[in-house]
């Protein structure tokens, strides 16, 4: 260990400061050199829409190398907020816009059926809308109340603010609240997981996400299928919206055009959604 000359000492202490300043400038410089457009197009919002938006983005970016689309979750309401504030160019949501959101520009990119699901082993395959409402309201607590086994029903719902829950509330529950002791999970996939593992459960998810591990109930005798949505027999349908602050322009328009194109809509259909043009109420 040497004792430096006076000059060297000053360099030493200076170098510590310099390192600190270096770190700080690294951070600041990076922020200056990045403009919004280099971040790419941001699509944020509904977790229901997210997997599909991601698929669209994937194909879009393959088709047009150099263009970037970033898909985020966060939820329908957050997506709308983001679009309003500009933190995302496109907000995605899985429910109709509310009155106070009407000033935003919406584009229907697909439609999605809402399926009420139970465990595959559940003997019940058909319920009336009324019964579903009573179950989710907590009035019917046991499966035997709808001619099933003598087992307590495990009700699974989505969290407040979810577009899926909003649609379910609007289309099934009406003014009746979903009861407090319902299990709450924060995405379609999680709800499906729970219903797939609990023989006594019931829940609602995006029709496009129904797979072999859960069973979609017939509502009032109508099977939840694409066909039945087209011919308006199955009533639980909600729009997937891309919301923008004003009409879409530039990059945003390019992406939305792609999504609405035949290729984009084919992707939607293959993934389990209803193409935007059909199934309108």
């Amino acid at each position, binding site marked *: 260990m040497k004792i430096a000359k*006076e000059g060297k*000492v*000053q360099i030493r*202490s200076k170098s510590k*400061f310099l390192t600190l300043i270096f770190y700080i400038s690294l951070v600041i410089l990076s922020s200056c050199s990045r403009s919004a457009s280099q971040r790419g197009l941001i699509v944020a919002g509904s977790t229901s829409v997210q997997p599909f938006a991601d698929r669209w983005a994937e194909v879009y970016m393959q088709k047009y190398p150099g263009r970037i689309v970033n898909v985020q*979750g*966060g*939820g*329908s*309401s*957050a997506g*709308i*907020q983001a679009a309003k504030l500009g933190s995302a160019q496109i907000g995605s949501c899985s429910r109709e816009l509310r009155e106070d959101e009407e000033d935003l520009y919406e584009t229907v990119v697909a439609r999605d059926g809402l399926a009420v699901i139970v465990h595959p082993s559940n003997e019940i395959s058909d319920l009336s809308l009324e019964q579903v409402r009573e179950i989710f309201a907590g009035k019917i607590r046991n499966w035997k109340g709808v001619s099933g086994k003598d087992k*307590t029903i*495990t009700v699974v719902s989505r*969290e*407040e*603010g*979810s577009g899926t829950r*909003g649609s379910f509330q609007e289309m099934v529950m009406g003014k009746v*609240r979903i009861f*407090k*002791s*319902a*299990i*709450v*999970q*924060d995405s379609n996939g999680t709800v499906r997981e*729970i219903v797939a*593992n*609990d023989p*006594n*459960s019931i829940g609602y998810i995006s029709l496009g996400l129904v797979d072999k591990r859960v069973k979609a109930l017939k509502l009032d005798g109508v099977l939840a299928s694409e066909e039945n949505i087209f011919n308006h027999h199955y009533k639980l349908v909600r729009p997937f919206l891309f919301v923008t602050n004003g009409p879409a322009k530039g990059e945003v328009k390019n992406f939305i055009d792609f999504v609405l194109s035949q290729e984009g809509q084919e992707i939607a259909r293959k993934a389990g959604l209803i193409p935007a043009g059909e199934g309108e109420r």
Partner: protein
Amino acid sequence: MKNLQRNEKLVQISLLAVAFSAVSILAIITVFIFEEGSPILFKHGIKNFLLGLNWYPTEQSFGLLPMIIGSLFVTLGALVIGVPFGLGCAIFLTEFSSRRLRQIIKPIIELLAGIPSVVYGFMGVIILVPFIRKTLGGPGLSVLAASFVLGIMILPTIISISIDSLQALPPSYREGSIALGATRWQTTKMVLLPAARSGIIASIILGMGRAIGETMAVIMIAGNAASIPRSILDPVRTLTSNIALEMGYASGEHRQALFATGIILFIIIMILNWIANITSARRKA
């Protein structure tokens, strides 16, 4: 020479500024949380907020009581598991095992602390929840599941701080007691534990803080029903899950309500930390 002095002064001042970073961050966080959350507390009234039974934010109903009770139950449950096992391990490792054994086991317990909470939650979902559902009934996502997993998660905290407290006791305590003819256990029970009491209590309180603050694992296994659980097999929602579940979706008043939940949580944890500090300070005095 004067240059050297000046540099030294400069260094000292900048280090002081740096040292205040932690405090400033704490201050900023406090300011932000309170700023975002208080408007709604004033608008709806703190009493309604804290004692209200109904959490339906989209309909302007912001009752937090079920979640407060939820956090309470789950934390108490965690302590029921964490304290006996934690204290038991600590006592075993300090009083009834060889140095070798201690050197092997202590790192293992520290490893427990390093496992991410989502992995704990995952194990709970895959193994514990179905087990509870099949053998005890209910949906499995329950107070019981959450307490169990949280209990395991706070073990390392309780164990390591209790070990430190016990090891910090002067050897004369042990020696004196043994010299009087007591067994090691009698020594532990009647001399050491009372003497290390404040440190042990501090460890428990810190464990409580950890349990109350845990989010991810709880979301995965507690069921998140916004109602007061009537048995340990009922689903439950804690203050932390409340925030995490709805944060992404919330806007306007809903979001403020979540921040207000954050305020409540923050205050509870600060109080716990303060108590823990005082208790362990008393030990040092």
